[in-house]
């Protein structure tokens, strides 16, 4: 399986309530790759990202990492993955440094410098400020600084540009580029353009008759997918 892509999604489908959100989604990603997820609001970009992370169980399809199905060795996959959701996941009572150090230590890393990570996003001077006193954009920067706190090959970014100013967007672009130059992979759900080297784009389109809520017996797209 040496020449199989490192990360591969096959025929993934998501069901929310009784509605099929997407079906037949497949993608491949290799070292240094960037996959941009696009699609209209509600198309299921966040769901797909959470599905790759394993937070949402796929309704159909499978996910392969290193040639084996992820569910075989979930812990090895999780150790190589960082998820930056649209919620910041920060504790407001703790300072930026404490939040980052906690994140790193929980993942068994203790040699990364939180202030340097914050510096990459231009907020080194806020290192000792409790997150409670930060603006939405500053919180987002702290949350993105987690990407630099522990080695992981796969970054999952859900709307990473929300609340960021142009300076921070450029900084994120160079952080992502450096990660990819080092062999890392990035999957990002975003409407806006991520600066930096281009990657592949996956547009999530709803299945053909997604409007018929009660009709789950989908044909068309689904038939092609299977």
């Amino acid at each position: 399986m040496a020449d199989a892509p490192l990360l591969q999604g096959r025929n993934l489908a998501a069901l929310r309530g009784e509605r099929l959100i997407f079906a037949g989604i497949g993608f491949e990603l290799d070292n240094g790759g960037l996959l941009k997820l696009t699609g209209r609001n509600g198309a299921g970009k966040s769901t797909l990202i959470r599905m790759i992370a394993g937070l949402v169980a796929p309704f159909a399809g499978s996910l392969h990492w290193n040639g084996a199905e992820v569910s075989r060795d979930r812990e090895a996959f999780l150790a190589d993955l960082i998820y930056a959701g649209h919620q910041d996941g920060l504790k407001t009572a703790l300072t930026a440094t404490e939040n980052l150090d906690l994140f790193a230590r929980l993942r068994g890393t203790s040699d990364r410098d939180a202030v340097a990570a914050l510096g990459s996003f231009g907020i080194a001077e806020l290192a000792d400020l409790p997150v409670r006193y930060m603006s939405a954009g500053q919180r987002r920067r702290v949350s993105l600084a987690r990407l630099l706190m522990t080695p992981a090959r796969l970054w999952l970014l859900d709307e990473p540009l929300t609340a960021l100013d142009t300076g921070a967007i450029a900084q994120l672009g160079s952080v992502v580029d450096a990660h990819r130059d080092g062999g890392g992979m990035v999957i990002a759900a975003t409407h806006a353009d991520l600066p930096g080297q281009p990657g592949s784009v996956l547009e999530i389109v709803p299945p053909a008759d997604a409007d018929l809520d009660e009709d789950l017996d989908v044909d068309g797209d689904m038939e092609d997918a299977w």
Partner: protein
Amino acid sequence: MSRTFLMLVRRDLLLARRQGGGSLLSITFFVLVVSLFPLGVGPAPETLERIAAGTIWVAALLSVLLSLDRMFQADLEDGSLDQLALLPLPLSLVVLAKTIAHWLTTGLPLTLAAPLLGLLMQLSPDAYGALIAAMLLGTPILSLIGAIGAALTVGVRRGGVLLTLIVTPLYIPVLIFGVSAAEAAAQGFSYSAHMLFLSAILSGAIVIAPIAAAWALKLALD
């Protein structure tokens, strides 16, 4: 893995200390509720002695109930539950770590405060040992069973009442064995059978509760 586990316990203790209130609130509630009884039923020593162990246990149970609803909810609201679920550690162990931290910040302080309230309630001198031993075994069970309820209601807005309805019936065995241990000791009987029953419930709860709560949390994250 065990380092991650210990880090998680320390994380929750740090958060409890930093956010403050949680632990102190339960203790204050505990003391206030118990001190209502001498006012309500009158200060006659024989009456108080009769109801002492039961009152202390019921008040401890209510204090734990009060503290349960934020156990996972705060982490769900700010998105850190996602991060905890993505640690290379089974979610049931994450739950166990959080439950241990919960006990250290509520059950343990309540147990330490109980002897003082025993004085207030004219608890028979022979019953102190049994009360404390039973609380040391019983309050972890309250945290463990509470974790299941907290996980089931984590996504429910204002789920506190629902949580109470789910968890309270499950607390009854602990209450019965806890109170009767103190009463047996007060009358000079051996209370080792009660301790064994509590130990058995605790052993079962340590295994089952984290798994059950982890399942409920997975549903909430989905």
